[in-house]
């Protein structure tokens, strides 16, 4: 009996491993193909599939900087992302703390209004936003991509509030008795306790901002205000007709790399804080 059970379990593990291996390969193969293509000479990609480039050709990675304003795009994306992540995280954590632990007028109404905004289709927001930005001269600047983000991120507030609700209020009462102000309680008690959840959310906001295509597409137009996604997209529509695939692949690899590196370093925070703050079973 015990032996059959172990055998069944082992078979289960083998089947499960093979399934996950198949899935993992499906996920990673397109990326390897992209990498492989980016290392080929432009005229050598039209034969039968060749996984290891021969010869390995790094020229695409140097050629790309002249072929498109990629450096400008990277610089713009960095400015936008760093500002939104740094300042936005500050605003979001403050709001999350207030919604979780402080008593103030209209708290419930405000929170419900906040959640309701998630339900509004983006297109309903982005059209009138465009008009407002046009009125105040923000079109074709980076401001529409930066300013709203500085004020916080609703999803992040929602997740972090959930997380902070799980932290004992007694901690705050004790600090109050010791004469600590509310900013101090937020800064020196709640922020450190929320580190893992904040880390997971920072990565999500970083990815969303770095990868954003819709915002730059609608609000900016000139090359010197393009973000990296916009640069790649226009490279794509331009060079796809000329079929210089290796060049586009090299550019895409450069655009994807920062996010992949960041995610690989920090991925352990992911499941843990999702388990805490996500949907409860």
């Amino acid at each position, binding site marked *: 009996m015990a032996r059959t059970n172990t055998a069944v379990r082992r078979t289960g593990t083998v089947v*499960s491993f093979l399934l996950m291996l198949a899935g993992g390969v499906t996920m990673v193969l397109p990326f390897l193909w992209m990498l492989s293509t980016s290392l080929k000479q432009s005229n050598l990609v039209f034969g039968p599939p060749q996984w290891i480039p021969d010869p390995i050709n790094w020229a695409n990675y140097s050629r790309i900087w002249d072929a498109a304003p990629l450096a400008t795009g990277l610089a713009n994306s960095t400015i936008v992302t760093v500002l939104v992540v740094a300042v936005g995280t500050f605003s979001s954590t403050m709001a999350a703390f207030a919604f979780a632990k402080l008593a103030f*007028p209209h708290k419930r109404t405000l929170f419900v209004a906040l959640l309701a905004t998630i339900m509004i289709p983006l*297109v*309903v927001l982005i059209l*009138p936003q*465009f008009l407002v930005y046009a009125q105040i001269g923000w079109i074709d600047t980076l401001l529409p991509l930066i300013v709203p983000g500085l004020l916080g991120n609703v999803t992040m507030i929602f997740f972090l509030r959930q997380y902070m609700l799980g932290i004992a209020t007694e901690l705050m009462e004790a600090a109050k008795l010791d004469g600590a102000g509310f900013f101090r309680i937020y800064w020196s008690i709640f922020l450190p306790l929320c580190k893992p959840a904040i880390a997971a959310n920072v990565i999500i906001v970083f990815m969303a901002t770095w990868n954003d295509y819709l915002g730059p597409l609608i609000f900016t137009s000139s090359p010197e205000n393009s973000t990296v996604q916009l640069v790649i*997209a226009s490279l794509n529509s331009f060079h796809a007709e000329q079929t210089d695939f290796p060049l586009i692949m090299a550019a895409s690899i450069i655009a994807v790399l920062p996010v992949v590196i960041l995610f690989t370093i920090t*991925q352990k925070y992911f499941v843990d804080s999702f388990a805490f703050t996500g949907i409860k079973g």
Partner: protein
Amino acid sequence: MTTIRRRQVMQRRERLWGLLFVTPIGLQVLLFCIVPVGIAIVAGFTNWNVIKGTYDFIGLDNFVEFLTDKKFWIAAGNTVYMLIPIPFYLFFGILFALGSHRGTPGSRIFRILFFLPYISSIVALVVMWRWLFNYQYGLVNQMLAGIGIQGPDWLGDPAWIKTTIVIMIVWKMIGITSIYVLAALKNIPEVYYEAARLDGASAIRMFFQITLPMLSPAIFFLTIVGIIGSLQTFVEVQLFTSDGGRNYSAATITYYIWQKAFVSNDLGLAFAAAFFFALVILGVTLIQFRLSRRWVYEGE
């Protein structure tokens, strides 16, 4: 006396700090959400033209115009088509979450691999997809040819472009779905399984009687978010096609609205369609919440 006064002072300070802390996000909601929505509602009843800068109130004319536009209904059909990925990525997401949860060797590395498509920008994915699914030289068709199948023109053929987009979305979404499901799996109390085992329940029975019901809130959440997101599919269409695809074969409602606003400069019509579309999404979401009472486990 002094304690009471002290408490009052503390309460006042708490209210003040509370309001101060939510001021940034409150400003954001007001300026970038409530004001725009207000504009959107009013503008739908005008014939606003950005270039000319003119507008008059024209009542329901915009609504009549897009509701009688053949392109709008083609786009509506395509938008419904974009719901197809949801059951697929839910299925694979649950499958891989279960594999990860039972401690399959290599789970940690697989988890990173599964996340690669999700963390990459949609622009990079479309770039990659256009090359992979290239009719003549793409890896997919070359591999199909290797087993004797002539692959279709994935990107150019109006009958295939939507399928290509669907495959990409399924592939992209499996990773994040499995993370949500995995988190929900970790929240199922082990005692349920222990009790079931004592009663001699089989693994299959335990899956259908314990695991699946306990996952239902997570599945519901993912379905709701998935439907809201899928109905708004736009970027993929804009990146894959130059004008919505041959015969408008890939254009979605959001694409239709974007085209009206930024290509034809017919803002009034775009606003009317966007407003109508928002109501449809709201309606669909409310119906789902209604239906959810029948199948979502709500806890004791």
